């Protein structure tokens, strides 16, 4: 069974300040990236798309995806040409043959998300973990893309 639903916008009420900054970030994102929210919205018509967060520290880019209720082996991750792709299929498990659905808000079926990485990464050193329904992908930055401190000698 494949259940395709649109996200319920009512469930997302942000404070005005958050909304403004989110809007600004979104405009920035749409301008400088063909990926991101626009792709995500479009993908909703074909299935569902997990929520993604991207973090950065000195050495790594870290991507977190909300994928509750999956099995590790159902998630595929690839890094290619500066983009990260997370895809897979959440299967609907009929645990009880006689069960009658009463409320169905969860999404099932295939998903596919692509994210343009803002910095070059060493894809062969990427590591992924899946815990409590969150997929975390750690992508070490290339040496060239790490911030460098330049020693200035004052004489």
């Amino acid at each position, binding site marked *: 069974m494949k259940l395709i639903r649109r996200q319920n916008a009512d469930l997302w009420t942000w404070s005005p300040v958050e909304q403004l900054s989110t809007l600004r970030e979104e405009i920035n*994102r749409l301008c400088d990236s063909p990926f*991101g*929210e626009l792709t995500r919205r479009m993908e909703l018509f074909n299935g569902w798309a997990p929520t993604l967060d991207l973090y950065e520290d000195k050495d790594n880019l870290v991507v977190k995806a909300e994928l509750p*209720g999956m099995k590790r082996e159902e998630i595929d991750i690839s890094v290619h040409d500066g983009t990260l792709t997370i895809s897979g299929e959440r299967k609907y498990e009929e645990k009880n043959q006689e069960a009658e659905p009463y409320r169905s808000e969860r999404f099932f079926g295939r998903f596919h998300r692509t994210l343009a990485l803002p910095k070059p990464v060493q894809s062969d050193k990427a590591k992924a973990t899946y815990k409590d329904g969150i997929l975390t992908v750690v992508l070490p930055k290339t040496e060239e893309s790490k911030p460098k401190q330049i020693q200035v000698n004052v004489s």
Partner: protein
Amino acid sequence: MTTIPNVENRVARTDNASANERGYFVPKVNIVETKDSFILEAEMPGVSKEGLEVLLEGNELAIVGRRQTGVPGAEPVYRESNPRDFRREFVLDPSIDTSKLSATIEQGVLTVTLPKTEKVKPRKIQVTG
């Protein structure tokens, strides 16, 4: 005779705004009915057993999930997730035996089993004579 589904969802029906005002994020749920019970599944990514609370007061069930968001020591670059804790409330029909609720959480999906009381379960009556 049809059994009328009888788990009501107060939050989704009337109270989404209030749940949001109180600073919670309402999780998506699926509810199915079987012969013996109702089974409720709620998506709470990032919530472990330790962060989970299933509260029962009279015939009101509340599910609460607290989670650690973000990555320690890293700056967010791009963020779609809602950082709030999860909460959703349900009103349980009297046909549910509230003394026998059970709950488990696995990979961010909470499953609550709400068994029906003995008297509403379908029974086969032996015909004698």
